[in-house]
């Protein structure tokens, strides 16, 4: 049973149901929320409600923690802006940092780990040199990983700042070039909306497309509940501003070859968070499997359903590269892990 993960979704979508929880459920739901990095989002959703004393104390701490995380994320974005400003190339913030920089609902309490930015592919080398000159260093010491990133990935090998200990992922597009779906990176930057400080964020449509692609055309759905919650918040806020948003989203998704990923993400969000804008026809088997994977966590915070997890893990590699390349990649990784373990 994964009552706790389901309960977390219900609480996020309908905070008024908080009154019905007993002590055991509170303990479990907060454990799941921490494991899924959604405790800050939950705390903001329940803010101002009368809750058990301990729950209020834990959520108040989560809000303080998220506020500090927000401040540090914005500072990190500013540091990157200063380092990259001399290049004169467009720099778009992605994911959590973009949400908080733009003051979106999706940024409320959002856990933010690394700084993710998007730059034109032509500026990638210059951006890397500028960041190395401003105190960032390579993280991956392994030459195979480094070469793999540079040849096949949609981002530079991760860099970490030697004083602030924060990572930056510099993307030139939002999916590996080897993947079957090829979003149009130039269009992403062309439609990006300036924040007024030299940085920009993706358009409302592209933000949701990026989150959906990350969920269903790239990753293995680990940490997926948080990405799905981003999608719910973004879609609701965009629809509140512009009732025609769903049509624009569908049209834009087609331009990026991402209709399927977006439709799947919207269906999953509708199922778990009652997100409006229900698109197209359900894929019964896939949708059920995706929900099983998204909710694969118990009230102790443990990952459950190992077979479903493995299936989505294998799928994520399958999507990312052609079979021969995948075989070679896994073989090299396997041999290296064996050497490291010996």
């Amino acid at each position, binding site marked *: 049973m994964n009552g706790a993960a389901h309960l977390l979704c219900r609480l996020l979508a309908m905070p008024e149901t908080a009154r019905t929880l007993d*002590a055991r459920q509170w*303990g479990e739901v907060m454990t799941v929320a921490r494991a899924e990095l959604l405790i800050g989002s939950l705390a903001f959703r329940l803010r101002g409600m009368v809750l058990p004393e*301990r729950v209020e104390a834990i959520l108040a*701490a989560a809000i*303080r*923690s998220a506020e500090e995380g927000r401040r*540090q994320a914005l500072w990190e974005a500013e540091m990157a802006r200063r380092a990259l400003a001399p290049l004169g190339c467009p720099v778009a913030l992605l994911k959590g940092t973009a949400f908080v920089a733009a003051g979106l609902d999706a940024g409320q309490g959002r856990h933010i780990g690394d700084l993710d930015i998007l730059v034109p592919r032509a500026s990638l080398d210059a951006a890397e040199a500028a960041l190395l000159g401003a105190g960032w260093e390579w993280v991956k010491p392994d030459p195979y990983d480094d070469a793999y990133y540079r040849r096949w990935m949609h981002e530079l090998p991760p860099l970490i700042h030697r004083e602030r200990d924060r990572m930056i992922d510099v993307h030139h597009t939002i999916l590996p070039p080897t993947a079957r779906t090829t979003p149009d990176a130039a269009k992403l930057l062309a439609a990006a909306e300036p924040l007024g400080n030299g940085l920009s964020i993706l358009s409302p449509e592209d933000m949701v497309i990026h989150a959906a692609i990350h969920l269903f055309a790239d990753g293995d759905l680990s940490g997926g509940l948080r990405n799905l919650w981003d999608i719910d918040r973004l879609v609701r806020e965009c629809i509140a501003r512009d009732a025609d948003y769903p049509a624009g989203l569908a049209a834009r998704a087609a331009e990026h070859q991402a209709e399927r990923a977006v439709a799947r993400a919207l269906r999953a969000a509708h199922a778990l968070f009652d997100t409006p804008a229900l698109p197209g026809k359900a894929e019964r088997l896939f949708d059920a499997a995706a929900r099983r994977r998204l909710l694969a966590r118990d009230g*102790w*915070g443990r990952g459950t359903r190992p077979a479903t997890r493995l299936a989505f893990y294998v799928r994520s590699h399958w999507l990312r590269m052609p079979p021969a390349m995948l075989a070679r990649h896994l073989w090299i990784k396997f041999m290296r892990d064996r050497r490291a373990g010996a």
Partner: protein
Amino acid sequence: MRHVFSVRIGPVSFRVGSDWRGPVEQLRALYADHPAPVDGIADYTVRLSATRPWRRFVRPSVAIAGDYMLPDAAPLPLAHGLLAAEMAMNLQLALGERRFLLLHAATVERDGRAIVLTGESGAGKSTLAALLSARGWRLMGDEFALLDPETGLLHAFPRLVSLKNAAVGVVRRALPEARFGPLMAGTPKGDIRHLVPDAVALAAMDRPARPVRLVFPRYGFANDAQPVGAGEAFVRLTQASTNYVALGEQGFDALTRFVREVPAVALDYPDADSAIAAIEG
């Protein structure tokens, strides 16, 4: 999980789940006089689980996990399950706590005035705190001092006192009536035995105290006591805090206030008696 134990230690409560009965029974016995979490809701969840399903039975190996985890935390053999539980609880606080500024320090209190002992592992924090508790001081904690950024007061965290190697015998002689956990020999931290905080420590665990002195003890040197300036104390405490950076400005404000208000001394000592004489003197 199969076996569950909950406890409140000062302002912090834990829910511990375990694949094995042993560690939970030990926790239950040693924390018998601690209260349960308020409202039955714990601040942190800790998991003691087998590293692989079969390692529940074959050479059982305890992985340390919970709400907050270190990716490369080494597992411990089941014989050291109690130590694993204690480490896992400490880890939750070290990585997750945001209400208090955590200082890696032992704290004792008398007449509402708290003395904070901080230093590297092996400096003698736990030993000195236990010995001072034998002399009528209230033990507030031997691992973390919880500094409230709003009030500048310290909150108690009287978990089991972790004694290592020769300190076990020293403290047993000073506290012959006290309760101790099992001796765990050959752990990564040496031979370990836990001391149960006394009734005074538990009865007063919800009463915060004003810090009046900060001591940097150092064991194995000739007697010496040198005042430590606020600037140096600040820098040393940033290194002794696990959540100073995470608290941001609030952490900075709390710590600068602390080092301004609390005089600090570096105390070198060759044996416990001289350290205690210096601290009480």
